[in-house]
């Protein structure tokens, strides 16, 4: 009797789940019949959302790398990481403004300005991230586990507030009108302007007649993300510092005994993570054309979800997770409703943590004792 029950348990649970999704899904905009009809009506839209999802996913993936590296080494959720990325956006915007790039029409000048902004925002974000580690986490390295997490939340609030003040300084962040809420600043669409001024169409698929938009922005974001990820992987695999990082992640005490300067390795990890966040900040600014002091919170949670989805501590996993979360958010924005996207991302996070806490590519480890 029991075995028969067990045999039927799984399909019955599956059927009940499907029924409940069909019944209750529409409350949270997950109306499968309507979505199916909309996909059948306009299949190329699916491709369009795929492109948007990949580009956003690339940005999420780069931020997720910072989370995953830090977690790998000191087992801390660096809560302030998303806000470091937000500071990257504002640094980029301010640099572009101070170098006069924002108002320039000359393509070469815009290109140079973007390059300078990339360097500056990487430098600022990296320094900020390492400073945060120094101020808030270093002395808590041997404290109870939740102490550094609480400290990290505090740091996140502090950095968010810095962003809020920064956004209010009209001499640093010029206002080109606001998008959405009052405190949201517009980040001018420089890449499209550069292309238009070079007499090229920013949409690379304009002449194909597929009705799709794959702009220079999408291309830049995806290519830059790919380059950064491959670079990071090579760095961790091939260089001496990368080796030291892996050793520290495996066993901090043993690494110390072998003469590895733990403090420097941890600082370097935070520098690299912060630098990646800064690069992501510039890319996100150019891609989404908005700068907001609170954007780091949402981006941080999405990329943390991505890191967990891929298996936290795993660099390839973070990239994979980033793209998946980007796609999820894009499809949710497109087919469900943007109002519910956050809820769906968090629901994904909860479900992964409940059913596969090690993530897609993480190794299955037993209960830590």
């Amino acid at each position, binding site marked *: 009797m029991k075995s028969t029950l067990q045999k039927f348990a799984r399909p019955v649970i599956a059927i009940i789940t499907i*029924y409940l999704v*069909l*019944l*209750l899904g*529409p*409350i*949270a905009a997950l109306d499968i*019949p309507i979505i199916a009809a909309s996909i059948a009506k306009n299949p190329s839209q699916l491709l369009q959302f795929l492109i948007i999802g990949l580009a956003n996913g690339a940005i999420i993936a780069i931020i997720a790398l910072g989370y995953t590296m830090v977690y790998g080494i000191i*087992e*801390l*959720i660096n809560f302030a990481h998303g806000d470091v990325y937000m500071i990257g956006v504002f640094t980029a915007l301010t640099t572009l403004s101070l170098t006069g790039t924002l108002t320039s029409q000359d393509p070469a000048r815009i290109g140079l300005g973007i390059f300078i902004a990339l360097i500056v925002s990487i430098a600022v974000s990296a320094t900020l991230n390492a400073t945060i580690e120094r*101020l*808030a986490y270093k*002395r*808590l390295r*041997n*404290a*109870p*586990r*939740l*102490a*550094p*997490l*609480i*400290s990290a*939340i*505090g*740091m*996140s*609030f*502090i*950095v*968010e*507030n*810095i962003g*809020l*003040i920064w956004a*209010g*300084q009209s*001499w640093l962040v010029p206002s080109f009108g606001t998008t959405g809420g009052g405190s949201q600043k517009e980040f001018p669409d420089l890449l499209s302007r550069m292309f238009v001024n070079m007499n090229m169409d920013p949409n690379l698929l304009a002449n194909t007649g597929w009705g799709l938009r794959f702009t220079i922005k999408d291309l830049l974001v995806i290519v830059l993300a790919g380059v950064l990820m491959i670079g990071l992987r090579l760095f961790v695999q091939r260089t001496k510092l990368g080796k030291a990082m892996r050793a520290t992640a495996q*066993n*901090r*005490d043993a690494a110390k005994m072998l003469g590895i300067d733990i403090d420097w390795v941890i600082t370097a990890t935070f520098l690299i993570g912060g630098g990646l966040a800064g690069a992501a900040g510039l890319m996100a600014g150019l891609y989404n054309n908005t700068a907001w002091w609170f954007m780091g*919170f949402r981006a941080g*949670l999405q990329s943390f979800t991505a890191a*967990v989805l891929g298996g936290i501590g795993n660099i390839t996993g973070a990239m994979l997770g980033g793209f998946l979360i980007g796609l999820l958010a894009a499809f949710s924005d497109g087919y469900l*409703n943007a*109002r*519910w996207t*956050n*809820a769906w991302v*968090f*629901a994904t*996070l*909860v479900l992964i*943590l*409940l059913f596969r*806490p090690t993530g897609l590519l993480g190794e299955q480890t037993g209960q*830590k*004792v």
Partner: protein
Amino acid sequence: MRHIRTGVLFGVIAGLLTFLFSGWSVAVMGLFAGVGLGLALESRLDRGSPSNLAKQVLPAALTAGAILLVLSLFQNFVVQPAIGKPSSYGNVFVPANIIGVIAIIALTMITASFRGLEEKWEKRAKMILLAVVAIAFPFIDTFTGLRWTSNVIFALIFVILGLGLNIVVGYAGLLDLGYAAFFAIGAYTTGILSSPQHNIYMNFWLVIWIAAGMAAIWGLMLGAPTLPLRGDYLAIVTLGFGEIIPVLFRNLIDVTINEPLTCWIIPGIQKMFGATSTVACINLVNHMDITAGERGINPIGRPSFFGYEFQSNNPTPWYFLIMAIILLSVFIIQRLHKSRMGRAWMAIREDELAAAQMGIDPIRTKLAAFAMGAAFSGFAGAFYAAYIRGIFPSVFDFSASIIILCVVILGGIGNINGVIVGGLVIMTADRLFLPALKDFLKGLMDFTVLPSLASNPTLQSIVAQNANPILYRFLLFGLTLVIMMAVRPEGLIPSAQMRAELHKDEEVVIDVEDNQKSKAKKG
């Protein structure tokens, strides 16, 4: 010497706060600072005769009184003109200062002399003193016209929230970053059950229990699947829930539920075989506006007490209502803390594996902590909804959860007195002192600083724009968390009982064992 240092600290804090509120505030500050200084000194004194003890603290009390007087005079004759207000000489300033200085000196000595009583009577005397201050406060407030009560009520709401979160974080050692979700559930339950939104008008005294029960049920529902997770993962999952709940309340404005079998599945199959649909679609809920989204639910019904209707313009009855709820909560929590369940919570916090070996069911124990913690925020939510009369989803976002966490951490994790002090300090700072500081700085800017910067208009505009302390709210909360974690992780008032119970030299913060375990694993 240490006593005098404490006296200086209290005198300076009280004196500086009079900068923000002129008039009678000196007297009220003297009163509070006297009680606070007395209690702070009292616990450090050796037992002796009351008069001797009073003599011991006399230097500290005099120092505090002198500092308060000097700062108050400075405020009246130097600061007031600088912020563009007249100095006062007349019938408020003189009595306020005399009362303030006498209050701080006398109350310090009286409170400190309680140490000379028998232990049982010492405790009772302190309770009576605090009760007198608490009961007298709204009347003093009305008399002096300071209008602090409505802000203090907010502080007391956060005290209840802190007490509830303290069960989860302090007693059971589970970091909950989405605690405001339960606050929201309590508030929305009240809103839905006593407002024109659904034309239901239930009695407040019934709704407050339903709200607490609802929050507890949600605590169980959210806790059951998540509690097996480890420390920081649990924190993130609770954060996720804490974010989903406001999204729900924001978006449940047009809910339509169609039964899928009759609406999609059977007609779909029939269509596949070319037949026309024969079943009628069962529509369970049709375009229902459950939570009113960003518009919020209002007006929410107010409680009445034996025919007395609570009014918005008179905060005093609300003050006593929330005081009663706090007393009830403190009583329940103290009993819980000492009960079998409370001891099980602490065992789980200290070492989950060992506790499980001793026959404690970890999941059930943690679930109980989650549900109990949630129930108290249900109380707070119900009171909040009735007091404010309108609830909006943006109140319950992540920052609310973190503010409640700040309350617990500043005061002292695991300690009821600490949480009460933490809640009062943080929320009065947030709702009372920051806005007052904003007005103060604005006056200072307009009358003193900006005219002196007239030669440099750019700098002038930058200074004018940024001299608004409200802008730095999050910074202050963040600093509270970071500094407390770095300098004094056990909080301002660490729990003495816990230390005594556990016979440990050092205060246990959350889960020391977790850290040791991971070290042992690595080593």
